[in-house]
C-alpha cells in the first residue's frame, strides 16, 4: 500500500513572551509586522487556490512549469547541469511539436533550483521553492540519492510527483505515491555488473580469474562494491576484500600499491571523478592495464574523458542509459544535445532527465490535466511502450507501487574513441566489448 500523504498540521500557538510586559511601541511594531504577515499569507493562499482551481478545471494556461531541483553548484554541479540540459532538450522537443495537445498546446517551461551538492537544507528549500514559488506541477531531480531523499519527501508532502534518475534502493523502499523512478535500482545495477560483464566477456572469448575492487568508504559505494565482489566470487572468480578509502584523495599511490599487489585481471571501481582519475592514472602509470569496471555517473561523465585522455578508452561502466541506444527519439535528442551544448555526447544523467520530462508530458497529455495529483495518478496507471517517454533500456516504462519501473534494465558501456558505447545487452550493443591490452 502506498504511504498516504501526511495531513496538514494545525498552526502552532505562539508562546507568550517570558520577558515581561511588552512596551507599547514594540507592540505597535509587532502589530504592523503581524498584519503584514497575515496579508502576505492570505495573498499566497489566494494564489494557491487560483492555481489549483485552474489545474482542476483543465485550464493550464499557456505555460506549464516542471521544476528542476538539481545540484548546480559544488562538486556535483556537472551532473546537475547535464541533467538540466537534458530536460531542456525534452521541453524544446515537446514545445516544437505543438506543446501538450490535450491542454490546448500549452508549452513546457523548465525552471531550475539549486539544491547544492551536499546541503540537504538547501535541497529542501529548492524543492519547496519549485512547488510553492515556481508553481511546478511536477519535479524532475535531484540526481544524487541523498538530495533526492530530501526532495522526494518535500514532493510527497506537497502531493507533487517527482520523477527521478536516482538509483538508491532506499528511495523506493519508502513506497511514496508521488515518487517515480524510471531507471533501475542500485541493487539491479550491482547485480548486472557481474552478469553483464561475465556474459559480455564470454561473448568476447575472455575469462576473468582474479579481481580487485576499490571505492569510497560511504554506505552506498561500500554496499555496491561488496555486492558485486560477492557475486563475482559466487561465479568462481578469485577476489580479496575490497579496498575502501576516504573520498577526496590527494595522492593515489597507496591505493595503486594495494591493487597492483593483487595483480588482478579485472578491477572494480567507484568514486567521485577526481579520485577515479587519480587512481586510474596511477594504475596505468604502474603498468597495470587490466580492464576497469566502474559504477556510477562518474564513469560516464564527459569530464572523465577530458581528464583521463587516452586512458579513458577501454573503461567499462554499468549504468542506466546511453546516447547510442536504438530507442525512439534517442538519436535526435543526442544530436540536439551535442549541437546545443557543444558536448561530445549526451551523458547518462541528461538522457534520464530527458526521458523523465517526456514521461510527465505524456501523463499530462493522456490525463488532460496539469493537476499534480492527477499527473501522479496517471503516471501510476500508464504503460508506455513507444516514443521518447519509453526510451529507457528495456523499452517500456510503467510504475510499480513503490514507484520503480519493472521493465528497466542496466546497460554496460565501454569508452571507445573518447565516448561511451553500449556493449551489453547484446540487442542494444553498438560496439563489441574489447578486453585486450590497450
Amino acid at each position: 500500500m502506498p504511504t498516504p500523504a501526511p495531513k496538514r498540521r494545525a498552526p502552532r500557538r505562539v508562546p507568550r513572551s517570558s520577558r515581561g510586559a511588552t512596551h507599547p511601541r514594540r507592540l505597535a511594531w509587532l502589530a504592523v509586522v503581524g498584519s503584514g504577515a497575515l496579508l502576505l499569507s492570505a495573498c499566497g493562499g489566494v494564489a494557491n487556490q487560483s492555481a489549483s482551481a485552474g489545474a482542476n478545471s483543465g485550464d493550464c494556461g499557456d505555460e506549464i512549469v516542471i521544476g528542476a531541483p538539481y545540484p548546480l553548484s559544488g562538486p556535483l554541479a556537472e551532473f546537475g547541469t547535464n541533467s538540466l540540459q537534458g530536460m531542456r532538450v525534452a521541453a524544446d522537443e515537446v514545445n516544437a511539436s505543438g506543446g501538450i495537445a490535450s491542454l490546448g498546446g500549452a508549452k513546457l517551461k523548465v525552471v531550475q533550483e539549486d539544491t547544492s551538492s551536499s546541503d540537504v537544507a538547501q535541497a529542501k528549500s529548492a524543492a519547496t521553492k519549485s512547488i510553492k514559488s515556481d508553481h511546478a506541477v511536477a519535479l524532475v531531480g535531484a540526481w544524487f540519492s541523498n538530495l533526492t531523499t530530501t526532495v522526494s519527501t518535500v514532493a510527497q508532502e506537497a502531493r507533487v510527483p517527482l520523477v527521478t534518475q536516482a538509483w538508491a534502493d532506499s528511495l523506493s523502499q519508502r513506497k511514496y505515491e508521488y515518487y517515480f523512478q524510471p531507471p533501475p535500482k542500485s541493487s539491479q545495477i550491482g547485480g548486472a555488473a557481474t552478469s553483464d560483464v561475465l556474459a559480455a566477456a564470454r561473448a568476447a572469448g575472455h575469462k576473468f580469474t582474479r579481481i580487485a575492487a576499490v571505492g569510497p568508504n560511504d554506505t552506498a559505494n561500500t554496499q555496491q562494491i561488496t555486492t558485486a565482489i560477492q557475486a563475482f566470487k559466487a561465479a568462481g572468480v578469485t577476489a580479496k576484500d575490497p579496498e575502501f578509502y576516504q573520498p577526496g584523495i590527494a595522492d593515489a599511490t597507496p591505493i595503486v600499491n594495494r591493487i597492483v599487489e593483487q595483480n588482478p585481471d579485472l578491477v572494480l571501481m567507484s568514486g567521485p571523478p577526481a579520485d577515479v582519475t587519480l587512481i586510474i592514472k596511477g594504475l596505468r602509470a604502474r603498468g597495470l592495464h587490466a580492464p576497469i569496471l566502474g559504477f556510477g555517473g562518474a564513469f560516464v561523465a564527459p569530464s572523465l574523458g577530458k581528464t583521463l585522455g587516452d586512458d579513458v578508452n577501454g573503461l567499462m561502466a554499468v549504468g542506466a542509459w546511453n546516447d547510442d541506444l536504438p530507442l525512439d527519439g534517442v538519436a535526435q535528442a543526442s544530436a540536439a544535445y551535442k549541437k546545443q551544448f557543444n558536448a561530445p555526447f549526451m551523458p547518462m544523467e541528461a538522457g534520464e532527465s530527458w526521458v523523465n520530462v517526456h514521461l510527465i508530458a505524456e501523463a499530462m497529455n493522456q490525463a488532460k490535466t496539469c493537476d499534480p495529483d492527477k499527473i501522479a495518478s496517471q503516471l501510476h496507471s500508464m504503460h508506455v511502450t513507444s516514443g521518447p517517454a519509453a526510451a529507457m533500456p528495456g523499452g517500456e516504462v510503467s510504475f510499480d507501487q513503490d514507484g520503480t519501473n519493472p521493465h528497466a534494465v542496466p546497460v554496460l558501456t565501454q569508452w571507445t574513441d573518447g565516448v561511451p558505447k553500449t556493449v551489453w545487452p547484446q540487442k542494444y550493443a553498438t560496439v563489441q566489448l574489447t578486453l585486450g591490452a590497450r
Partner: protein
Amino acid sequence: MSTLLQVLVSGVLVGGLYGVISSGLSLSFGITRIVNFAHADFVTIGMYLSVVAVSALGSFGLFLTPVFGLAIGLLGVLVYLLLLRRTAVGATTEDEAHLPQIVITAALGIFIQSLLLAVFTSTDRSVNTVLDGAWRVGGLSLSKAQVVAFVIAAVAFAVLDLVVNRTEFGRGLRAVVDDADAAAMVGVNRRRVFSISIGIGVSLAGLAGGLLATYQTVNPTTGFGYLALAFVTVVLGGLGSIRGAFIAGMVIGVVQQATATYVALDLQNQAVWIGFLVVLLVRPLGLFGKRVMT
C-alpha cells in the same frame, strides 16, 4: 621489501611538495606572525595557471611554472600591502593583530575559491603531459611527474634555505625574527622584509600548485585540502623553522603512505593527526623548534 621501499620513496616524493608548501607558510609566519588562512588557495591558483598553460601550449606550458610562482608571489606582496599591512602595523600587541588577520585571510581564501569557481566551474580538471607515466627502477615504480615535481621543489627549497641562511638579506630576515625593533634600529626595513617574506611564502605555494597539477586533478577547493596539512607540518617542524617544515612534510608523506599501505586506506590522515599529537606531547616545540631565551 620492495613494497616498503616503494612506500618510502612515494612518501618522500609526495611529502616534498607538502614540505615546500609548508616551508613557505613557515617563513611568512615566522617573520610576520601573520596566520595566512588563504595560503593553500594560492596553491590552487598555481594549479589552475598550470592547467591553462598546458591546455594552451601542451607540455611546453610546464616551463612557465616558475614564472607563475613568481607572479603569485607578487600577488602575495600586493595582498600584504593592501590588506594585511595595517593590521600588523597598527596593532599594539601581536594578539590584537591576529583576529583581523585571520578574518581577512579567511575571507580572501573564500574570495579566491569563489572567483575560481566562477571562471573554471566546479568540474575537476587535469593535464596530460610528457610527465604522465612512470619510470621503472629495479622493482620500484617512480611517477615521472612526482619525481620532476620533487626535484624542482627541492631546488626551490635549497635556494630559499641559501637565501635565508647565507645572504645579507637573509640575515635581515633572521634579525627581524629575533627582535624586530632592534633590527629596525640597525637599518633593517621591517615593512620591506614583511612584504618580501609573504611574497616568497606565497610564491612557494604557487610553485607547488603548478607542480601538483602535473599529477593531481584540480577544482576550486583542491588547495584548501592542504591547509590543515600545511599547518600541521609547520607546527610539527617547529614554528618558523623552514628546514623543519620541509623535513616534516616528507615525514608526513611517509606516514600517510605507510598507514594507507599497511593499515587501512581510509586511516592515512588520521595517522597524521595521531602522530602530530604524539610529537606535541613529547616535543611541544615540534621536531626542530628551539626554545628562545628571553
